[in-house]
Structure formats: C-alpha cells, structure tokens
C-alpha cells in the first residue's frame, strides 16, 4: 500500500467510533481514578456524532474537508478538555491536506505533526505531563523517522501503535502536571492517563483500518 485512500480514512473513523464506544467504561474508570469520571462519555459522545457523519463523509472526496469537519464535530460535541484538543488535532490535520483525495506517507506525517502542534499550542502540555501528548508527540517523532526508512503504511502504523502502547503505559508512574489529575500531585502516580489511552485506541483503529 503506497497511499492512504478515502476508504481507509472512513474505515479509521468508523473503527475509532466503535472502539471508543466499547471502551467507554474503561476510559471513564481511568478518568475516575485521577480525574472526573467522564472521559469515556465524552469520547463516546463526540465519536457518535462522527459516526453519524460517515455517510456524509463517504460522499465527499476532499480529505482535507473531511478532517476539518471531523475536528469541528468533536469540538462542538465533546466539551471538556478532550473536545478542543482532539478537535484541534483533526482540524489542523485537515488544514495540512486541503483538497487532497489520497495521502502519501509524507502527507500523513506532515499533517499528523501539524495536528500534534495544534494540541500542544492549545493545551501547553509537554511530554511527561501525563496527558495525551505523551502518546501523540512520540508518535509524531516516530513518524518523521519512518520517512527515511521507506517502509509501508502497514509497517509504519504497526510501529506507531507499539510506540503508542508503550507511551500510554509509561504514563502510569508519572506525576500529572496538566489537566485535572495535576490537582492530585503525587496521588496521581500509579494510574494510567485516560487521554493517553484514548489516543492509543484511536491509533490502534488506524492500524486496523488498513488491515481489513
């Protein structure tokens, strides 16, 4: 597979919606330990809206427009911290690929990086703060490296999912410095960050989307 096509993107969003729905209670449980017990509901609410738009997305060939619409949908339906962050990610991702109908690996990497930068600007978190950035930023780095390795999408996505999983788990021993969990100080240690987990799940859906 040399390019990421329209159908892959639709599949990605579909699988992500399903995975987040399935993991609603799990994400909420993680958020209840060091947050306010709503991350699962928030993600489900947002991605249900996305799921309802899949038909509309199917009819639109402009991937940039789809990603931007996806971002706006999340922004206007999630609220909380994750709404503007994931919303910004997909919005910025879309801005990087306006009018494209398929994506090269280069396109994907550039757009992903732009998305992550948007999240960083909005939320001002750094790696190690125990947030979704702990997953997203290393993945962006890994993606950049992959460009020189001339790998297939399959290999690249499989790599980043592994990296994401590791990063997600690496949030467990951290002291949170951003988001609600930061209020707990040292009491946040020993719990996995909810947003890092949803980021991992979204990336896992991406990998699965191109496998089918």
């Amino acid at each position, binding site marked *: 597979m040399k390019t990421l096509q329209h159908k892959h993107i639709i599949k990605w969003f579909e699988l992500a919606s399903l995975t987040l729905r399935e993991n609603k209670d799990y994400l*909420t449980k993680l958020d209840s330990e*060091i947050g306010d017990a709503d991350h699962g509901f928030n993600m489900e609410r947002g991605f249900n809206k996305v799921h309802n738009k899949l038909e509309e997305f199917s009819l639109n060939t402009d991937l940039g427009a789809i990603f931007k619409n996806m971002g706006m949908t999340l*922004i*206007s339906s999630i609220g*909380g*911290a994750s*709404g*503007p962050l994931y919303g910004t990610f997909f919005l910025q991702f879309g801005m990087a690929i306006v009018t494209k109908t398929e994506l090269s690996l280069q396109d994907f990497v550039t757009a992903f990086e732009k998305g992550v930068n948007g999240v960083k600007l909005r939320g001002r978190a750094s790696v190690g703060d125990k947030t979704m950035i702990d997953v997203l930023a290393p993945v962006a780095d890994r993606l950049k490296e992959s460009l020189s390795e001339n790998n297939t999408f399959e290999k690249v996505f499989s790599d980043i999912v592994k990296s994401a999983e590791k990063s997600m788990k690496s949030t467990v021993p951290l002291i949170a410095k951003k988001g609600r969990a930061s*209020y707990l100080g040292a009491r946040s240690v020993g719990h996995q960050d909810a947003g890092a987990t949803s980021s991992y799940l979204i990336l896992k859906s991406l990998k699965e989307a191109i496998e089918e």
Partner: protein
Amino acid sequence: MKKLINNIEDVITEQMQGMAAAHPELKINLDPKFIIRADSDSQKKVVIISGGGSGHEPMHGGYVGKGMLDAACPGEVFTSPTPDQMFECAKAAHNGHGVLFLVKNYTGDVMNFEMAAEMLNAEGIKTQNVLIDDDVAVKDSLYTAGRRGVGTTVIMEKIVGAAAEAGYSLEACAKLATKVNSYGRSMGMALTSCIVPAAGKPNFDIDENEIEIGVGIHGEPGRKRIPHTSCDEITSILTHAILDDGVYTRQIREWDHGTGNWKEIEFTSPPFKSGDKMIVLVNGLGSTPLSELYGVYRKMHEICEDKNIVITRKIIGSYITALDMQGVSITMVKTDDEILKFWDAPVKTPALRWGV
C-alpha cells in the same frame, strides 16, 4: 443510583425545559444549549456570560437575570460546554457593547472559552475572558493546571453583573472581574463523593471515618484524606488555609484586541491581612444541611474575629455545588467600596434576589 430523572441522555434538556416553564423571565435555547435573559434584546450594556459543566447548582442558569448574568452556557454534567454553544449564546445576547466571559480555571473550560473568544473576536464581536482561579487547595501553578475556579465565581458574577448593569465598559468590567479574582480565595472539603447520572456510581470511594480535604466541585478526590473529625477542626483547617495563604502568582492568557491574539501576563493575588473586610460564602456542596453550614459559620466567624478579619457580607447555603456531594467550602473575597457597592446592588435571578 437513585435520581429523579428520566433517560440519562435527556437529563439536561428536560431540566432546562423545567427552567423554561418555571421562569418566563428567562429564554431557554436547547440547540445549542443556553439560558438567556428574556429581555436581552432591549439591553444596552456589556454582556456578562458564564458557563461550565452542569451539576454546580444553581450555577449558572440560576444566576441569569437583572443585575447578574446575561446568559449562561451549561455543559454536560461536570463537562465544559463547547465553543459553538458559547458562540451562539454570545451572538444572541450581544448588543454592541462587547462580551465578557467569566471562566472557571479548568483546562476544559479555559480551552473551550478561548476558542469561543477567538471565534467571536474574528467576527468583530469584542470579547474578553476573565479567569476565576481561587482554590487555595492547589498550591502551585507551575506543576499543575493552576488553581481551580470555585466559590469566587458566584461572587464575581454578582459584582460584575451589577457593574455591567450600571454601565461599565467591557474593559472596566474585565478589570473589576480581575480584581475580584485576585481578592478571592476558597477551600473545600468533602464527606462523601457524588454520583454523576451517566456514571451511576460515586466518583471515589471513601470510608465512613475518612474525609477529603481540598476538593473542588467535581467529585474528584482532594489534596489529602484524613480521619473524620469535628466541625470545628474541619472549619479551622479550611479557614486557616485561606487566611494563611501567601502571595499567589501565575501566568494567565488575556486576549489582546490590538494584535488579535493571546498574550501571557503575570498575575498576582496578594495575601489577606488583618483588617481586611470580606464577603464570605459558606457553601454547601449539595447534600449538606443548612444547619451544618451554620455550625461551620460559627467557628469560621470566631477565627476571623481572632485574626481581625471583618466579615461585612455573607451568604450561607448551597450556591455552587457538586451535585449531591456532602461537604462544604468557604470562600472569602476582600472588598473595597467599589466591590461592596456592586454586591449590594439589586439582583433578581432565580437563585439570588434582593433589592427588587
């Protein structure tokens, strides 16, 4: 979970319909959700808007009305509302004199209100955000998301609402709000957690003989867990945390209407000192009987007298709750003539009413 609700998805909508039926002086918009003064079309003043997760009753819908808020945007329970909601709400309320968003300092609220302010300023509707970050349970701002916005919110909404009613400009309202924030400090504690309808069970488990000190208003665990103790001891912990809190400095973002972008500024709250005159809020977190709040007031009053802190005004009751949490928070806002004048000004909202 036992609640007086129908389907969990419809809770906020139906409760807003109840508000609409009960309060013809308010206009309720359901998509997107906001609550606005029915007479907002005839206003000629800065528009004061607040919003945040639902469940902090009677915030914010209960504070919409003459002399307080022009409109409120409720989010899902404990979840910040969304920028499109704030955008539509502000557009509906705006009458040419600008929009002031009063924003409690939670990552979600801050980011969503920032996006809304960006959108409105881009449309030519002059908008400013002022943060409330008054919770002294959060010590530093360097290694955290900064102090949470709690009880000072209610007091700020009253004061700035009155100033807007009196014809203050957007800049003057923002300046006054910023002053109130720098003069406000709060601290809370919980005896129990609370149950978010969608979750169906308590946010945290707590033993019959333990309490949480330093909780916010979202049913989240607090700074530390200690053995349950007497009302006097608990009140003493909260009151001293407020009175002994030192200078608090943090970076905040303010919209720069010149450059059309955010600028970071350093912002400092001076500590309280002997002789300060306070507006005090003894606040129940939802399920605490009013009588117990009077028990808390008794001890807090005693400590304040000892320390020569003068309580000039007070409200005692459930003014900013965490659904059905059992617990209490204390808020003190230092006053001056300007603040006191606007505190005493007439207000007529479903939840706060005097002078009219």
